[in-house]
């Protein structure tokens, strides 16, 4: 029981970051049907910004807001340079385009910035823990969960209360109908990228705080987790993406602590098998957004 409680808390901390990433991916998929494999590049770029700022002698209070700004800027730049040219193309064309972006960005960092690991200090409080009864809780997890909850609440408020949020949700459901109502396609797509940049920026802060280092390929793992979480949630669904992120985090922690010692290292593999099985039996994801095939 104690162990389970411990797992759930650890899993929520991990899953929160996944949820932020997945939500950003789902927002973009919703409006333009792009499964964005370049989402991780926002974290790669943020990582180097964190490193530079840290090298300049500034601390995390400066790094955090800068990371969010840079992440938004990068998201908008990638849209402008690559994705706007394939708007409305086949889903797969867009998916491969995002792959292309991923590889180009990664290679540019590898060539012109650094191929080796860049380290920076992690905040001192990050390893602090406190005990509640038999359960040990990391301060970091509490911060992550709290900030994620706040971020999600703010995102929900934007989506539910603002005209931009309404336009975005309307466009995600029926792009042409939204255009007929006067929603500008440029504005809503850029807005979606900006929003995904904010969410990825916040996720990046936590990711980098925990890692304390970055490399040109640092974005791959968070991107994959985000994509998987969004897929589990059914891609188009925003609620599904958040749920998918939390589930993925919990599943990882539970598997890691429950699998026999010999194969605990295979946690990621097992997670992939589970996700493949999910798609074999429910190709639309857990929360299926069904659209009838028009004949």
């Amino acid at each position: 029981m104690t162990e389970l409680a411990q797992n759930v808390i650890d899993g929520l901390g991990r899953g929160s970051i996944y949820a932020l990433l997945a939500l950003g991916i789902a927002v973009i998929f919703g409006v333009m049907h792009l499964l964005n494999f370049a989402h991780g590049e926002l974290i790669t770029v943020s990582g180097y910004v964190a490193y530079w700022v840290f090298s300049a002698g500034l601390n995390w209070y400066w790094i955090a807001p800068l990371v969010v700004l840079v992440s938004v800027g990068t998201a908008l730049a990638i849209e402008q340079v690559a994705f706007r040219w394939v708007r409305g193309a086949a889903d797969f064309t867009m998916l491969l385009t995002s792959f292309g972006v991923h590889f180009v960005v990664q290679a540019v960092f590898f060539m012109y910035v650094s191929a080796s690991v860049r380290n920076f200090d992690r905040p001192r409080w990050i390893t602090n823990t406190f005990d509640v009864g038999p359960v040990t809780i990391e301060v970091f997890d509490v911060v992550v969960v709290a900030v994620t909850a706040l971020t999600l609440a703010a995102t929900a408020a934007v989506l539910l209360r603002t005209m931009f949020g309404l336009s975005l949700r309307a466009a995600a459901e029926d792009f042409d109908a939204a255009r007929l109502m006067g929603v500008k396609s440029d504005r809503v797509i850029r807005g979606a990228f900006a929003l995904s940049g904010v969410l990825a920026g916040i996720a990046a802060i936590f990711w980098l705080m925990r890692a304390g280092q970055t490399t040109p390929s640092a974005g791959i793992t968070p991107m994959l987790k985000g994509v998987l979480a969004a897929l589990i949630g059914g891609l188009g669904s925003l609620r599904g993406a958040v749920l998918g992120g939390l589930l993925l985090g919990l599943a990882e922690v539970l598997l890691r602590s429950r699998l026999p010692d010999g194969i605990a290292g295979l946690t990621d593999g097992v997670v992939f098998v589970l996700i493949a099985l999910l798609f074999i039996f429910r190709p639309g994801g857990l929360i299926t957004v069904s659209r009838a095939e028009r004949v």
Partner: protein
Amino acid sequence: MLDIDGLTVRYGSISAVRGVSLSVPGGEVVGLIGPNGAGKTTLLNTVAGLLHPASGHVRLDGTDTTGYAPDRLLRLGVALVPEHRRLFTDLTVVENLRVGAATLPGRERSVMLDEIADLFEVLRHKWTTPAGYLSGGEAQQLAIARALMSRPRLLMMDEPSLGLAPVLVDVVFELIDQLRAQGRTLLVVEQNAARMLEVSDRAYVLRSGEMVASGSGAELARRSDLFETFVGSVVGDTEDAGP
């Protein structure tokens, strides 16, 4: 108010609309009728800026608006209630209405919401219901109300009675009557020709992408060959020059 001149629209190798001209004077209700596949929906979608014509012009009060994006046309006062309603089913009734006012400044949106609430009593009771849960009649009213939110000077409707039970068809036509009484300009595509002609000041008949007849609603309603036009006879000698 609206003048369409020699409009041709193509999908790949098919011409869905071929050289159609028509005009909608301010304050009138104009019906556009014709069988399936006549090109009526294509025509409305082109006027609303969703499609680009291969040739021809669309003019609004003399300004050439051919090729304008939908949001720009909305700001100029042209709104469309699309075929099959195309409501945002995950959004609530009031959210749908808000999206309809996307081109208005924020303050005017709430004013418009009040106006619409007065006009559509049925919807007021369902303000926070997701649009997906509305009945067919309510959904159609919402679709029209949503388009009215942008304060259009010209409201186009595509098959507003499609898929509605007869009682609800009455509701839609009463609404059209009501809008006409308010002096609004309407361009309505309808299959329900007899009912449409009753409420139209003038009407055009489209078939296979071409204009085959036009006249006042009453004139066309008296034409005995109209049934044949609808169900497939070739109309040759009944061509009407129109106004």
